[in-house]
């Protein structure tokens, strides 16, 4: 599904290159559920951002569903991204001024769905995540676990092939975390969504089908479960 070849990411600090990712190569197939682990500063989030096309590598080649991403223009990348990728964050990142239903609806707005279609899809999603009763509440009125559910619902509404999650359970207690992980597993197994998550927790990492360990911007180990 995607392939990274000799990817480097660095920042120039007073003439010196400060490497975040250093000549990293990685292949990921459709249907995989990958957990990326590693100590702070090992480049986990940067890798995820590059995969999600939120950030560009300083060097290297990147392919996504048959497209050479490093050759694409911003607009094309954005189109590709819209079609295939959903993002979940540790801090949920919901829009505070919008209700639950409106938050979930937002991605559809940017994909030119008709209003009626959008309403139907949002209703569907609310139903699936059992949050119909909360649809008119604002994010501040929800618990962390509920907010993350909304975040996932928003990531999934446009039916992405790839779900990227940056420490999705980092702000949640263990029970809420488990529920989210179960949900991820189900999505991966039943709906065939490819998932890449960054996590600090060994336990959560084991929900995946492969664990990649990063150290100092390089793949230290890759373990198939």
């Amino acid at each position: 599904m995607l392939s990274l070849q000799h990817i480097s990411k660095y920042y120039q600090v007073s003439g010196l290159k400060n490497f975040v990712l250093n000549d990293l190569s990685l292949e990921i197939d459709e249907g995989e559920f990958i957990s990326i682990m590693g100590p702070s500063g090992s480049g986990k989030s940067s890798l995820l951002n590059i995969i999600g096309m939120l950030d560009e590598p300083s060097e290297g080649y990147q392919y996504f569903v048959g497209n050479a991403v490093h050759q694409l223009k911003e607009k094309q990348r954005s189109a590709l991204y819209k079609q295939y990728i959903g993002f979940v964050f540790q801090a949920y990142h919901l829009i505070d001024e919008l209700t639950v239903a409106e938050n979930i609806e937002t991605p559809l707005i940017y994909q030119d769905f008709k209003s009626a279609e959008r309403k139907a899809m949002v209703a569907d999603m609310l139903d699936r995540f059992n949050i119909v009763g909360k649809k008119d509440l604002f994010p501040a009125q929800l618990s962390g676990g509920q907010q993350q559910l909304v975040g996932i619902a928003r990531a999934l509404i446009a039916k992405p092939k790839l779900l990227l999650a940056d420490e999705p359970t980092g702000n949640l207690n263990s029970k809420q975390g488990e529920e989210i992980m179960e949900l991820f597993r189900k999505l991966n197994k039943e709906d065939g969504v490819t998932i890449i998550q960054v996590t600090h927790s060994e336990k959560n990492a084991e929900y995946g089908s492969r664990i990649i360990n990063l150290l100092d911007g390089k793949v230290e180990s890759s373990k198939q479960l």
Partner: protein
Amino acid sequence: MIKNYFKIALRNLWKHKVFSFINITGLSIGITACFFIFMYVGFELSYDKFHSKADRIYRLVTDIKTPTETMNTGITAWPFAPNIKNDFPEVESFVRISGGSFLVRRGDVKFQEEKSAFADSTFFKVFDFKLLKGDPRTALSAPASIVFTETAAKKYFGNANPMGQTVLITGDAIPAIVTGLMKDMPENSQIKADMLISMSSLTQKFNKGLDNQWGNFGATSYLLLKPGTNPKALEAKFPGFIENHNGKERKSSQMFYTFFLEPLKSVYLYSKRGGQDSGSITNVYIFGIVAIFILLIACINFVNLTTARSVERAKEVGIRKVVGAEKSQLASQFIGESVVLCLIAFVLTILFSVLLLPLFNQLAGKTISAGVFSNWYYVLILLVTSVAIGLIAGIYPALVLSSFKPVMVLKGRFSSGNKGNALRKALVISQFSISIALIIGTIIVYTQMNFMQNRDLGFSKDQMLILDTNGDPAADAFKQAISILPGVKSTANSSSVPGGGNSGAYSEIENKKGDLQIANLDLYFVDYDYVNQFKIKMVAGRAFSREFGTDTAQAMLLNEAAVKMFGYSSPQQAVGRRFKQWGREGKIVGVMKDFHFRSLQEVIKPLSMRIELKQLGLISVKVSPQNITGTIAAIENKWKTLIPTRPFNYYFLDEFFDRQYRSEQRFGKLFFNFAVLAILISCLGLLGLASYSTLQRTREIGIRKVLGATVPGIVNMLSKDFLILVIISFFIAAPVSWFFMHKWLQDFAYRINISWWIFVLAGILAVLIALATISYQAIRAAMSNPVKSLRSE
């Protein structure tokens, strides 16, 4: 999508109520102020444009050159216009207007119609003043025909039809027939009158032969040129015309005329030759610039406050980008929001305008606009302006916001603080530069006004009551009667008083070389008591005196300016010299110290005074300050018995003199008000910025306090940044305002020097205002408990 944006916009506005309030109020005040000035400027520019033939109407004006001086007058002698019409086929028609004040009586109703005018029968043909009743071609033809405005007619006839009725005009009770009723003249007409009398009454009845007096000036003449006529070409033919008709007389009198044509549409604003009502193009420009400045300040606020808040909106931008929004979509969202804000401001502006319009009309001294909704395009202009501001002011914040990188903003801390900072600072500096410049301008305008009102004018004007008998034969008896009243200290008769009009006389005065030099001198006819009454000082010779029987016919006083004009190096040299003036000959008996008989805008001109004991219109009465009302009542009593045919009118000389500064005072007031508005809007912006920058620095303040910073130290730190901006603004504003106000002061012959304290005062004021605005936020932030601010991290 638009619905979604709209929702977000409104919820955002509601969530940050204080911010929205500041932003919207600032903007509405700015637009309202700008709108008012726009209406004012529009009104000033609209003068005389309602005449459908305005493009072809020209005012004929005359430069009169004597061996001594050249006078640029706005008037003509009576024969000019009719003869020009006869000689030049390109002149289609002409109108002469000559203003005056007339006693009008009908039964017991009597009024002194101060705003009356003689006008030629072509008046309604050349101009577009609307005649409601009567025939526009003949209404002003026959002698003793009168056309009233509706308002004037009501005074005499109520709601009855005035057509064909007779009224008695002048003290001689000459019967005149009402031949027309016209609409009140529009406010934006330079020509204004409540009553028109046919010009033939003057030229064929009151003053026969006037049509042949080429040296008697007093008519304002307008020429209607045929379409396609080049006024310059016509002007070029005038020297030959004058030579042809009146060349000999010109040569013998040594007074030479040059004619010019002033387009009617520019008379009000551009002509320096005066007129019934005159405006100032400089003031129009000044107000135009002020309006643009105020709007600019309001827009700057808008941009500043919006970009300052970008930190808060950054997260939303990041999320939207992550879920698939493109930059252009986000930019249009933010521009949309700013348009929504401006539409709310538009509604508020309408509200403000409706509420404040009467006040503004009062301030401007005329009905600039009857109502905001009286012109639908006003509302349209406001709407378009608001939306345009929303678009323009929204672009920069939109571009800044929409270009945030999601990775940066979503990864925890995001400081945009420094990015727009330089721009924000520059904008604050420009706002405060404008505000400080306006403060300096206001102080200078007021200092000048104060200077004019308090300057020693060289004559006494306090407790001086002026009564106008309009030359009634009973005036002398009346004067005798009131001079013995207890509250009356002294009385004097004269043709003129300072601040009012006076005649100019063809004069021959012996100059230093011993020749009789021709000049046009301002002339006051006075009685023996006048010089004393007004406490005018003599610098040489003596004042008029009853001891010299010859004073009534053969004595003249000059002022210092006149003495200088005729070449004398000291006033003493002029005493005993010969004069000839209006058929009288005699000697100069004394020289008066210069006194301001016109406003301080004009240099004191050469003035002559002569004795005339009969039929002087004005009686000046010096009253004792106690019980002035009682004294006036007693005077009125005497008036009613001795001059029963005329209405009793009086005014105080000091007020009458200050009336000359009415337009300057209005200018000052308007300027002051708009300066206050500009400062208010700037402060609103500063308040908003200060509160946001303090908010952003909450964590820093917390850390500093933990490390031991004191409250005053922190207040100082937070205020310093803004104060530096204000101080920089001061140094930009000071020279700019000096330059413009220096120019403005050039219109005044007697003016203040722009001294350093004005700038110091303005600077201190600006710093204090800014400090007061910032300090609340700073003190609150400094007092807050650091535990709270650090916990939120």
